[in-house]
């Protein structure tokens, strides 16, 4: 892991890990050596709940191209949901959950 290039986003949501669903609190985004993907470096996202210990983790390892495509698709989906009037305001208690 020699780039040590990691940024963190505080998030709210749920992820399904090895033990089932759990609350997500952080997304750690890195560009570094993957654990599994057959590339020397990849765009890695660990969706975690740090307070719940290292095992509360859902991991993905993507090519840079796939990661950009995913990021754009997420934004496009939200934009369309907003344009079509579907986007709901997230209740305050979920933000602070």
């Amino acid at each position, binding site marked *: 892991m020699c780039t040590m290039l990691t940024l963190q986003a505080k998030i709210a949501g749920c992820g399904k890990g090895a033990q089932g669903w759990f609350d997500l609190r952080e997304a750690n985004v890195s560009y570094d*050596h993957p654990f599994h993907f057959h*590339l020397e470096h990849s765009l890695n996202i660990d969706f975690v709940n740090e307070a719940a210990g290292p095992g509360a983790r859902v991991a993905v390892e993507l090519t840079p191209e796939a990661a950009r495509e995913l990021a754009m698709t997420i934004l496009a989906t939200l934009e369309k949901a907003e344009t079509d009037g579907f986007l709901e305001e997230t209740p305050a208690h979920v933000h602070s959950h």
Partner: protein
Amino acid sequence: MYQTNQYEGMLSETAIIRGADGDLINAYLARPLGPGPYPGMVLIHHLPGWDEWYREATRKFAHHGFVTISPNLYYRDGHGTPEDVAAKVRAAGGVPDAQMLGDVEGSLRYLRALPNCSGKVGCFGTCSGGRQTTIAASNLNFDAAIDCWGGRVVMASSELNPKNPVAPIDMTKDLKCPLLGLFGNDDQAPTAAQVNQHEEELKKHGKTYEFHRYDGAGHGFFYYDRPAYRQEQAVDGWKKAFAFLEKYLS
């Protein structure tokens, strides 16, 4: 060299040692069975964690006649699969160099206290562990050190932070033992230019070193479970590593 008519055995197990600040941490210990005295090795694991490859490497060194210990540098970060713990440490930007040094020093002290250890002890690390090996070799009293493709030995001042306050290359003047470096010429961290820079620094300070650079190899070419594995270069690299240790730890 092992002969087919000789007795061979080893014991490998988890041990508890005192690391940085006197903290108790766990470590994996593998030692040849017999009175010895055997030279020792401290293995500094890579950022992918205190994982199966490092357990195998620990036993490999024991098979070659070294009392070998690999401290769990991530002990303080919680427990889970090595990968989950390593992902947590990755997100935190790694462990502080000072804490790593304390854990490695504790490992060194543990080995030198064993009655079947000769007292001659080397240090080995790959990837981030290669970088940490160069730091350990400049700050602790090892008898030999092996840096395998350690990245971020050369660091720009903008890369320095509270966990990594000094670039390892700037510790070269204090290097206390012979250093073996194994590198792939296609590696991006360290690049061939950074390896050159490190070598120049070693020459400048009159240090004993051997650098071997392999064409057709990149980062992590010993890792048989990764696409980076290069059979020919890895076999030669292991041969060079054991020849180096034979020279300086016997």
